[in-house]
């Protein structure tokens, strides 16, 4: 049962990689992954919230009465989300314009609340930070990968740089909402194939 620190960290990268293995938090996954930059930005914002809230929830786990734990978790998470939102407005405004409403919606991202409830409230702060970091990086990688596929096919660019020649006709479908579902479905399918071996 007792896992090492490294195991807690790496489980988020493959075994429990959020959108593909846990299939949680799909709303931002589908909505913001129009480009690599968006995916990366959303991933980093979520990772920050996840690590901070995991740490604080774990620190306070013996103080918070269990009857009101969810309310306390939400206050903690919402605080960090608002911090991220303000900082992003001040220092990365173009990214904030792209992500828009999905930044405040990190509050109700089930990954963040899920980790607070399932992990941080039962483990010590060091392990909770490792868990948050692992899951966060896994989430960031998944969003970036999905963003990369959609951006390359849909816009013909990667992180804003041209990939194909000017003769490439962008497959616009991929950057619209239905494209996100199709793309996520195909990636889930590949992940399951790879995992079932």
């Amino acid at each position, binding site marked *: 049962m007792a896992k090492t620190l490294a195991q807690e960290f790496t489980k988020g990268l493959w075994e429990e990689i959020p959108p593909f293995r846990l299939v949680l938090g799909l709303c931002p996954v589908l909505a913001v992954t129009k480009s690599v930059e968006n995916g990366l930005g959303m991933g980093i914002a979520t990772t920050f919230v996840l690590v901070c809230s995991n740490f604080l929830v774990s620190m306070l786990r013996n*103080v*918070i*009465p269990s*009857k*009101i734990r969810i*309310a*306390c978790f939400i*206050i*903690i998470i*919402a*605080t960090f989300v*608002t*911090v991220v939102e*303000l*900082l992003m*407005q*001040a*220092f990365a*405004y*173009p990214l904030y*314009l792209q992500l828009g409403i999905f930044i405040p919606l990190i509050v109700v991202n089930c990954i963040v609340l899920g980790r607070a409830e399932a992990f941080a409230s039962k483990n010590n702060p060091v392990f909770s930070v490792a868990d948050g970091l692992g899951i966060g990086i896994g989430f960031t990688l998944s969003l970036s990968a999905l963003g990369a596929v959609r951006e390359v096919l*849909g816009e013909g660019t990667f992180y804003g740089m041209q990939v194909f020649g000017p003769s490439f006709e*962008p497959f*616009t479908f991929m*950057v*619209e909402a239905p494209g996100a579902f199709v793309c996520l479905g195909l990636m889930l399918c590949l992940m399951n194939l790879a995992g079932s071996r």
Partner: protein
Amino acid sequence: MREMIKMVIVLTVLSSLSGGLLAAIRNNTQERIDSQVLKFVKGPAIQKILEGATNNPINDRFAIPVDEEEKNFFVGVFEGVPKVVAFETKGGGYGGDVGVMVAVDVKTGKIHGVSVTTHNETPGVGARVETHEDFKSQFKGVPIGTETKVKKDGGDITAMSGATITSRAVCTAVRRAGDLYEKAKPQIKQQLSSFSG
């Protein structure tokens, strides 16, 4: 009873700490956020249509109440004379309002240029309005207050192919700019005559 009191205390302390932290961060970022909004939302559009102005139109702005609403007017100085004002109007597009920055030459009463600020049009179709200079340059030199319409509606403006609704939205915004300019004209002239850049 004791448990009850503990719950109240925990929640109160947590909320106040959260509130205090957020207030502090907001206080420190507010100014930066305001300038970022101007720079990234309105800035590029203003810079584009007032290209060649010798002043900084974003700093040299004044507000006039039009129809009970404070409207920002950005002044462009050309050849040493403050002769162009730019302001924003909106027209209903395919995915909500399309914000259009219209610059008017005060001396001649002709449109100096138009540029799109915010929109939510379909990528690859209506969204081309951002970069479609052939379409936008049609408004150049048209006297402000002209009934601008796309050819389909009996006007002179050639719509962007496949994006008639977006093209119409820009025409509507330019027509509204005409009304607005007419209402604010005396105050604009007054502001410009006392302008010292």
